[in-house]
């Protein structure tokens, strides 16, 4: 839940650039135009810094970044494995 909130806030405040006032956790971030190409790369950089975890290249796939829910479940899984 907390991961979802952190990601949602970051996307809304830093990446959406006023395109949306709220983001539904299930919304398709790319197809809806909420974030762009460089937004994805910023999101990777943010996750690495915030969660102190390096996202492997093979994990930078749309399936993990498609929505807030997809990204938070990917992160929860990775962080659980790390601990």
């Amino acid at each position, binding site marked *: 839940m907390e991961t979802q909130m952190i990601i949602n806030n970051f996307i809304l405040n830093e990446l959406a*650039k006023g395109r949306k006032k709220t983001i539904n956790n299930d919304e398709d971030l790319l*197809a809806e135009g909420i974030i762009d190409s460089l937004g994805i790369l910023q999101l990777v*950089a943010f996750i690495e810094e915030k969660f102190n975890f390096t996202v492997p290249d093979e994990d930078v796939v749309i399936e993990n970044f498609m929505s807030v829910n997809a990204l938070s479940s990917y992160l929860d899984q990775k962080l659980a494995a790390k601990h």
Partner: protein
Amino acid sequence: MSKRFLLLNGIAIINVVINHSIGWTYVAMFWWVHRYTALSSPDFSQLYSSTYFLLRTLEQWIIPSIPAFLMVSGFFAAFSAGKKRALDWNFVVSRVKYLAIPYLLWSTLMIIFNALQNTRYTLIQLLRMYLTGQAAEAYYFVPLLISLYLLSPVLIRLVNWNWKILLASTALLQALTKLADYPVIIGMNLPLTPFFSFINSGWFFIGHIFWFSFGMIIGFRQIEIKENFHKIRWLLLIISVVFFIAGIFEWEWLLIQSGQTWIGPHETLIDNLYSAAILSAFIGFFNIRFPFSKKIEELGPKSFGVFLAHSLFLIIAARGIYHFFPQLLGLPLLFFLILVVVGLSIPLVLMKMTINSFLKPIYTYLFG
């Protein structure tokens, strides 16, 4: 490696501003001479001066900027296709929308700016300007990128079918297009010269399709490509240096062959080989941190906004100096530095002001 592309975009946008600042510095050195000497313009006595060669070297160094943007865009198209390896048209429409709206807006601003200085356009000229990105020297890139995004679902299918054939055929197509540009550069009057000139138009995808395809293939096979380029990274760097030097000599040779005092910028085949080598080397050296990487990475996501806005502020700064401080035109390196600072800083300040104001909801329509 994906984070590396943020850095690459940041470097590329700084280089784009440097490139256009160099263009204005040439204008000051050759076409505005009458403003700071008793000579009449144009005057090419500063051609082959140390300042000229310094600027030419810098100009050659930053050639891979547009290829870098196109490569990152291709990478993103591959990312968006995901494991199903097919692009959703919603994605293409969304990308085109957020590229086209700010582009149309800034093109209109440029056209109004020129109209205020008594430049008049016919309807056909206006239409051509919007469709081919002629409102400012840099704008050809946007129609080019839009056309590549529109082609991306087809290109993804071709990657799925056989990525090696796609890479080889787009490389060959682009190389042949660049070869056809040589008669145009040196002013040979052949029956096909107008056609060669057309296919080498900046906005036309044929002459740039390799970069986008290359980015797509990197997107799908990034681990394999990263490791392979890492193994030959030093060789790639040496090849880059060889083509970099060859490009400088080639341009002077073409200038002599043309019989002209000056020829406008063209990206040659040697330039393309240099871009391919240096971009591959950049991937190969993925574990090297550059100075100021963090700051440059922060610039990466703002690159489209800077790209659109810098042209207008460079024109205003250059013409302002021409009218009010003409002595500065006689100090080309200082003039150049002023333009770089203006071209980078004013768009960034404008973007920051917009995002922190009531204009935030329209930020994306202004700066992408």
